């Protein structure tokens, strides 16, 4: 099965069949990894570039490993690289990469829509590794993979996403993916960090963390950029933690088997207390492991030609 669109810029508009297919393939990839297979031939004629205009350790490394395990030739361009520093436009950078025969560009950019803009203008396939406040589809895919693996399903799950929703591309991608897969999503955060009219997507919005977490199957925290306080969006980190921090009191309201998730890196004691991060129901480190498998699956699917598919 192929993905319908050339690029993966977000999960908005991606069908349930496509998501299920990626998650199924990720399962096979994870099986290989667990057997210790770290050198596979599927992508050995493929050339992949990570084009990161923002710092990233986790996502970039995860993609790098995914590509390498499948035998792709991986190269990296960072924002500090010379042509970007010299003021080369995104379009010119993209066209230069294309001229070198790159198959897939994995891109992170601080501005929303940049991967979609680039993808529209070049023939190489673009995977969004996070754009501004828009989407981070592979993070949501690995989150959904983790939920499905641990809880056996996505449909009907009650997922509470808590924190800075406004600036979060992780929240937006999860919202779209989870809605498509039939989960119930509740968003919770301060009014200053809640996107307007987001409830029109069919999610619930609450400002009360207790209401959000009540009977939840999944409690997902989001990273709070500490500079939000300085820009006038929050009175103090202390009050943020008091009103919106996930702690053991709040967690009691969730279902007994509820998963604790976070895309990382975590501000301990701000959006989540330490005992929650290290809780036995926390799957934060497994999210990282699953990220490699999900990205392997995606790279595999996106490099197949139609005739390759049996």
């Amino acid at each position, binding site marked *: 099965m192929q993905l319908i669109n050339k690029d993966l810029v977000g999960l908005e508009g991606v069908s349930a069949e496509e998501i299920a297919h990626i998650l199924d393939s990720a399962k096979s990839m994870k099986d290989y990894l667990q057997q210790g297979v770290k050198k596979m031939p599927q992508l050995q004629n493929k050339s992949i570039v990570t084009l990161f205009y923002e710092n990233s350790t986790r996502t970039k490394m995860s993609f790098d490993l995914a590509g390498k395990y499948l035998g792709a030739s991986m190269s990296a361009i960072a924002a500090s690289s010379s042509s970007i520093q010299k003021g080369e*436009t995104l379009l010119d950078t993209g066209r230069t990469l294309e001229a070198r025969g790159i198959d897939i560009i994995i891109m992170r950019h601080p501005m929303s829509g940049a991967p979609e803009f680039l993808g529209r203008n070049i023939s190489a396939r673009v995977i969004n590794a996070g754009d501004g*406040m828009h989407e981070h589809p592979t993070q949501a895919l690995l989150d959904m993979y983790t939920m499905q693996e641990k809880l056996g399903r996505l449909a009907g799950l009650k997922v509470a996403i808590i924190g800075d929703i406004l600036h979060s591309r992780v929240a937006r991608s999860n919202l779209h993916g989870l809605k498509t897969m039939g989960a119930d999503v509740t968003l919770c955060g301060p009014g200053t960090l809640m*996107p307007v009219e987001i409830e029109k997507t069919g999610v619930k919005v609450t400002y009360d963390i207790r209401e959000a977490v009540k009977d939840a199957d999944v409690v997902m925290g989001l990273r709070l950029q500490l500079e939000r306080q300085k820009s006038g969006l929050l009175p103090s980190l202390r009050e943020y933690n008091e009103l919106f921090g996930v702690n053991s009191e709040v967690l009691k309201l969730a279902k007994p088997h509820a998963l604790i998730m976070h895309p990382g890196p975590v501000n301990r004691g701000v959006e989540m207390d330490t005992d929650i991060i290290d809780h036995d129901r926390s799957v934060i480190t497994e999210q990282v492991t699953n990220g490699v498998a999900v990205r392997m699956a995606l790279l595999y699917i996106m490099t197949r030609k139609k005739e390759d598919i049996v």
Partner: protein
Amino acid sequence: MILIKSGKIADAEKTYTADILIENGKIKQIGENLSAKGAEEIDAEGLTIIPGMIDMHCHLREPGQEYKEDILSGSKAAVKGGFTSIVCMPNTDPVIDNAGLIAYVQERAKKVGLCKIYPTGAITTGLGGTQLTEMGELKAAGAVAFTDDGKPVSSGKMMRNALNYAKCLDALLILHEEDLDLRADGVMNEGYYSSMLGLRGINRAAEESMIARDIALAESLKCRIHIAHVSTRGGFDMIKKAKARGVSVTCETMPHYFSADDSWVVGYDSNTKVNPPLRTKDDVAAAIEAIKDGTVDAIATDHAPHHVDEKDVEYDIALFGISGFESALSLMVTHLLPAGVSLNKIAELTSKNPAKILRIPGGSIAEGEPADLTIFDENEKYVFTKADMVSRGKNSPFIGRELVGKAKYTVVDGVIKYKES
């Protein structure tokens, strides 16, 4: 001599079919079965003739930003769009804040000689917001109004001074209404689509709060103001109520505010990036209501051409503005006529009212008047493409859209300045 045969003539008052005879730049005669030996004939059967359209809000970019547009390319685009007169904004480089630059624009316009160009002068020197320009001298040189367009006059105290000073010169202020602090780094309308796209939103209050401030100032100081590019229901409502109270306020809106909404930003086409931003479907409906009920006095383009390099970038860093001359009339025909706006109303908003507000010639089709005419086919359907744009700026969100209505001839002072080839 030009003889225009059998056109459907629509001015602000009435619609009728007649011939128009033009001599020495003026309309000599209007009647049936006119003939004139040696006259150049335009067969206008099936075509519609309205008083030459006056665009009271455009950016010609000269002096200083000729890579975006200049007075020649802008004039070509204007007459292609059916405009016989255009009013250019002073946010050039340098800013038109002295009489010398007014004279420069006038001279260049004369040399180009396509449409009539009326310059405006800045309210504050360099659009800096702190020092009034020499409005008396600028007005004497030919500035038809004053505006810091592109920027608001942020200081309420400064606006009060500007209004009181303009009043003593009987000068008109055209106001760009925007609270810059509230707009912050927003790039599109704040709403569902900004939330979905992850683009920073511009709350409507950034526009409406400044409209409210300036209506209150104009009311208390008994001054005349014209509000530029109104885009929200709340803005139209306030202006409507102010008019009912007798406040001397007029306003304009643009074709893109009644033709497109913020859902158009999906896909991140930076040609949809404009300031004020494309609003919601409800605001589009409000703009059409305000056109019908008399709240809107003028339809102008806010023609804002940019170089492709300034638009072919990430949405956040693309410049604000839509290149509007060539699509304006088509958008009016496409979206206003089916909504029940009459041709007479269109003539009023594109010609009679702008002439009255700015106290410049034009606005009617009558014997003895200057022969400024816009002749168009109100039924022609076509797909608007880059090839339809002669402006240097091809930044239009309407490229690729099917539109109805197209200018065929533009006559300025009795001379055919544009003829569709």
